[in-house]
Structure formats: C-alpha cells, structure tokens
C-alpha cells in the first residue's frame, strides 16, 4: 500500500477491525499531513480517477499537533460530505498552531469514481504525529467509515 517503503514520502492504510487507518509519511509535518489526506481519498476511490479541477481552501488551528491532524482530516471530511466532492491533490502549510491548506478535486461522479464508502470522521485511535528520524514525519489515525 505504501508506494515504496524506502521512499521518505508516501501513504498507506493500516488495518482496523471495522474501520481503516490512514498514515502519511513526509519530510515535513505538512507533507505527512498531505500524504495522509491522499490515504483518506483512497478509502473512497482511486486517487487517479479524481481530476484536480476545482480548488478549495481549508484552515485549522490547534495547539496540539495531533489534534491539529484530526482537525485537518475532519475539515476534509466535512468538505467532501457537504460539497459532495473528492480530492486528489493537497498542499498544506503549517506555521506553529495554524494550518492552511488547499485541496484540488471535483464533484463525485458515481459511475467514474465508484465511491466505496463515505467517511464519517477521524478518531483519536492510533493517533500519532511525530518526527521519527530527522526529516521523516509520520501522521496517522483510524477513521470511521
């Protein structure tokens, strides 16, 4: 599921009994958040099937980096649900407690995207945001589907 496990940048799913774990890895915290968001999209559909035609902006603020990650995923889940959109490209900037991000995608096309399941929310289960080695950030949690 990680495209290449030696690559310092990537995403994967990890197993959970009823739900799915999303994990992003990047050289910065922001990049790990971007990768985890790709893992989120991949729960619903094939990322490649989503054209990055429309841009939306997202911001969040939280003094706790792990809860900032949950806020980020929850904001995306809210946008996916209310705009009925899927996203395939993300750009995240984090400055201190503030996250500002852009997400590119398109409205759900049931035939083309074959969306498997809607995501209800991010949980605090297996929640981790940490710099594991220098220049290797990990961001992960279980999401409820």
């Amino acid at each position, binding site marked *: 599921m990680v495209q290449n496990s030696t690559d310092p940048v990537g995403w994967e799913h990890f197993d959970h009994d009823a739900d799915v774990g999303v994990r992003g890895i990047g050289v910065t915290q922001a990049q790990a958040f971007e990768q985890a968001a790709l893992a989120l999209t991949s729960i619903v559909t094939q990322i490649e099937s989503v054209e990055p035609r429309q841009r939306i902006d997202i911001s969040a603020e939280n003094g706790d980096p792990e809860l900032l990650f949950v806020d980020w995923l929850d904001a995306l889940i809210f946008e996916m649900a209310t705009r009925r959109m899927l996203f395939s490209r993300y750009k995240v900037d984090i400055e201190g407690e503030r996250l500002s991000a852009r997400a590119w995608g398109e409205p759900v096309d049931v035939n083309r995207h074959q969306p498997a399941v809607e995501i209800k929310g*991010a949980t605090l289960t297996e929640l981790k945001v940490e710099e594991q080695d220098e220049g290797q950030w990990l961001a992960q949690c279980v999401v409820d589907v």
Partner: protein
Amino acid sequence: MLSASWMYEMDLSQLIRRDVYEWEIPMRGAMRVPGIIYASQDLIRAMDDKVLEQTANVAMLPGIVSASYAMPDAHWGYGFPIGGVAAFDAEEGGVVSAGGVGFDISCGVRCLHTGVDLDELKQKQVVLADGLYRGIPAGVGSTGKISLSDREMTEMLTGGAAWAIAQGYGRAEDLARIEENGRMQGADPKAVSAHARRRQRDEMGTLGSGNHYLEVQIVSEIFDKKIANVFAIAEGDVVVSIHCGSRGLGHQIGTEYLKEMAQSAAGLGIALPDRELACAPIHSPLAQRYLGAMRSAINCALANRQVITHLTRQVFSEVFGRELQLPLLYDVSHNTCKVEEHLVGGTKMNLHVHRKGATRAFGLDHPDLPQELKAAGQPVLIGGSMGTASYVLAGTGMEIAFGSACHGAGRAMSRHAAKKRWQGRKLVDQLAGRGILIRSPSMRGVAEEAPGAYKDVSSVVDAAQEAGLARVVAKLLPLVCVKG
C-alpha cells in the same frame, strides 16, 4: 503494519471463565470493575486482543457500575470496543463518553412486515429491486428529496420520527414500535453546531454507505413459535429491514464532541488510560451539552428511518398495485447513551448506559414496551452482512449487561483485503444466481461488503442466546439488498 503494544495477548489464561459463555477480565491496575465478555470459546479466540484492552480500559473510567461488558460480536473500536456496554452513576463521578456512543449515533435496524407472500414477491422481485434502488437514495454523494431549513431542522431534532409523521412520512401507530415512542426526550438542538446542521441539510431520507442497507427478506425459520406469534411473524413471511443511522449530523456531532472531550479531560480532572476514551463527568456542562446534541442525533436517526419507511411503502404499493401498509415490527438503535433505571445489588439506580454496537434487549413486562409486546420481550434486530442471514431475537431480562444484546456480525476482514479478494460484479452475479438481487451504485463498495468479509452472524446469535442475553426467535434470509 503497526507495532502496537498489546496489553493482553489473546491468551485465554488471562481470563477467568465464569460460565461456558461468560469470561471475566479480572481487575488489575486502574480497573474499577471487572470486564466481562459474553462469547463462545471460538468467538473469543477469534477476537482481536484490542477488545480485551478496550474493555479493560473502559473499566477504568470514573463512576462505572458493575462491569465493563462486551457482547459476542465485539471488535476493536475507538475507545470503547464495538459491542461494548457500560453504565455510569452520575452521583459517583460517572462520565459520558462520545467515543462510547460512536460517530453514527443511533444507527439501528427497523423491521417492517410486508404482507406480501413469497410467490407474489418472486414474480415482482426484479421490479421491486429496481424500484427500491430508484426510490431510496443510497451511497456516497446521494441526497434526499427533503432539504431542511434551519427551523425545520430544529423541529426534526426535537421531534424524531414523530416529526417525520407530522410531515406526512408514515402513520401515528408506527411510533409505539420505536424505542422512546419515536421521540427522544431531552434533545437540545442548540447543542448541535452549524456544521452538523449543514452536513445534514440534504441527507434526510438517505441510507448512507458502508454496511448500511435496505433488505427485503424472507422469514426462513422460526425458533420460538410463541414469541414469533406475538411478533406476528411466521415462516415464509416477507419482511423489510432497514439499517442506517443519523447520517452526517450524527457523524459531525460525534467528531466535534470527541475532540472537545479529549481536550478538556485533563481540566476536568479525569485521568484517561488513553485519549481515545475522551469523556466528561455527567454533571459537567460539556457532558450535558453532548447529551443534548446526542439526543438530537437520535431523533435525526429515528426521523431518517421513518422517511425511508415511507419511501419503502410507496415503492411496495406501486410495485404490487395496491395500498400496502408495511407496519413496523420494531425499530432498535445500537449506538446510544440512555438514562435508564436498573436494579444493582438490590438498589434501584438511574444510570447512563452506553451501548456502542450493542442493542437494548429489555425483557418481559418492561414498562417501555408497548402493551402487546410485554408478553414476549423487546424485539432485538440483528443485521447480518449482504447476502447472509439476519435474526430476530427477544430480550430476556434486565439482569445481564443492563438488558443488552449483540447487534450484528462484525468484520472478519479489512475493506482492503476484501477488495483484493472479491470483484463486485462477480459477487452480484453469484448472489443473483442464488436468488438474491443486489442493487448498489458502487461495485467496489459491494466487494468491500462481501459476505465472506464478515464473521458468521449465526454463531454470534447462538452465543447471545446461550449467554442469556436474548432468545433467538426467527432467521431472515435476503431476497433483495439495496446497498449504499
């Protein structure tokens, strides 16, 4: 994969076998009460170690009463296990936990009698499947025909199924066959955020996705004739089961309060064994706000199943060319926290009972049951997976696990593994060959919900009966399944 640190190995020697179907996690560390899992030896062996860890963690929360329980279908959740039951005493510092209810607040199952016989059904099976698929919005991105203004939303959040009926979705007699008479008291729509309302705006009367479904089923076997008579079901009857919850509104409420509880636990003086157990003392303003919002979400789920019931009645009447009533057998919720009176050690107590992936299973003569069901106990509706059996059980009493029972099968395999193993289109064809028509917008979704990706619900139901949680009354087999 994760290198998680297991608190327990699934080593049965860690457990005390109190009875053939009752396993105790003895008190240790910060546990205030023991953990109790109801299961056969095979089921408990197959459970994830995380069920034991989470059941034990819940036993550490303030004000927990008697024990932290896990049902035979328990599996790894977030904070509480799915299939977990725990009751808290407000006067002993007891807590309310958003994770102990879950994101899909008041997700549940409603079963309708159809009065259509099998021969007639078979003649119209394809038309019915197509009609239900067209008539009931399902799947990612689907919207209902009802779009609620803010004022209408507020009325729905306090009115539940009763609101839906007042809008013309159903009949007044439906209410007696819904928990809380279709309207949860104590809802506080002011505690529901603008985001949660926004998320619900276009989702009234939608099924959702994942393991949610609408099935037309046949009663294939009766195990308890006396109770089946009271429930008015007999072998060969055609019924409809609807499994869905509070849609975007409940998901958003769960999401928001889980985080708020996690961030305020330390300030409220609660030491959590794990942040995912986020909770607040029942008497705190945060817990009271959550309860008000959660009860609003219960009403949303009841209203949603009521609207879907109305749509189902329309489709049935149209397909069979006559007015079909489709009366309710019952409507049960399996993700809730409710204030209930229970006898604990001979003393009557009002407790906040969390059931996450567990249903109420109130016994004979319970005052909350409608008069005509008092002689049988509460109907407990157990959903299987697509293409497999579902069951109707009856509650036996209030003594075990605060009058609770299991809710379903539980996954045996991750979505990813299922997607690799099965192809949606092939599954649909195979099931059609067995007389089961699947209608779904997403073949990938079908693959992820393959019958083989779930545990065997029959063994869960057997264990529930053997443990004394409920009595098995009837088995239902699918004929049509609309899947989100």
